[in-house]
């Protein structure tokens, strides 16, 4: 009689997968929290300039976004390389800015309208001509509160 129990056959026991759901949920939660929903698909290049005297833009629902810059590479064959304005999901001309502001206002509650801010997300290589045109249109539409969206950093990097 052997003192030792007879060993079972040599194959490894199955790894418990009971914790797999936990891992998956953890990942899910992490991405849920860390993801910022982008309302618009960008069709223009959008490398924002640097600045350090900035204010934070809270209250996302009170902001209207206007993008401008060179069309992204895949749109360049169709729209060229001249800087353009993007409103919502499509390219727009300067004249359409006013209409865009009015329709954005329409969709907001009346008491919130005075607090609406226009965020200009403009690529740093864009010429000021286009930006000034947008600003003139905003003045005509009486959307006077604007914010030049920037990346926090030393402004000297813009000039290099």
């Amino acid at each position, binding site marked *: 009689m052997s003192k030792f129990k*007879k*060993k*079972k056959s*040599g194959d*490894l*026991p199955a*790894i*418990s997968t*009971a*914790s797999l759901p*936990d*891992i998956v*949920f*953890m990942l899910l*939660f*992490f991405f849920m*929290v*860390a993801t*910022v929903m982008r309302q618009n698909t960008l069709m223009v290049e959008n490398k924002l*300039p*640097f*600045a*350090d*005297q*900035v*204010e*934070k*833009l*809270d209250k996302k629902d009170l*902001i209207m976004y206007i993008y401008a810059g060179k069309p992204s590479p895949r749109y360049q064959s169709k729209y060229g390389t001249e800087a353009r304005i993007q409103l919502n999901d499509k390219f727009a001309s300067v004249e359409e800015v006013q209409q865009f502001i009015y329709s954005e206002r329409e969709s907001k509650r009346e008491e919130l309208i005075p607090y609406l*801010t226009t*965020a200009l997300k*403009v*690529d*740093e*290589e*864009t*010429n*000021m*001509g286009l*930006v*000034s045109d947008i*600003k003139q249109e*905003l*003045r*005509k539409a*009486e*959307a*006077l*509160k*604007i*914010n*030049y*969206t*920037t990346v*926090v950093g030393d*402004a*000297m990097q*813009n*000039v290099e």
Partner: protein
Amino acid sequence: MAKRSAPEVNAGSMADIAFLLLIFFLVTTTIETDSGISRKLPQWQPEDVEPPVIKQRNIFTVLVNSNNQLLVEDEEMELSELREAAVEFLDNGAGTGDEACSFCQGAKDPNSSVNPQKAIISLVNNRGTEYGTYIAVQNELVAAYNQLRDREAQRMYGMTFTQMEKNYNDPNYNGDKDALKEKIDVITDMIPQKLSEAEPTS
């Protein structure tokens, strides 16, 4: 000799580890918020309105050409020197009598501004100027105003203007917000941001 079977790993604590990680990420992740330089555009005006007359000494002209070069008060300048020059202009305080500036520490140059309330910075850019340069110039000018405001706020209330604004916008700040607002208003009245932008030259 027979092969020894590996003992089964206890997976009961796996969930705890997962939750620990989850909570760690929850706490450390911040959702990105946009930030930028806020400006207020002037009202749209019909073109036949005469602009008010302002003395030349109270205007600080900054010109940016299409090659992104700066011309400040008719002299070429590097961007890195702009902040210093703007502070010097705003802080000059050459005024006398009604226009005297009680807190200015500048050189009192008779050809420069009388006091910060009267001083206007005029920014003219070309249609070909790059947006990045324009933002850098704006940033330097705002920085000049903030530097002066910080100095005065520090002198009068022992706290920088930037800190005061930060506290004011902080929902968790448990000091007296109304008093803080008053202080902020005093400083902004003393040193108002008068930054005028002309139509770009083409």
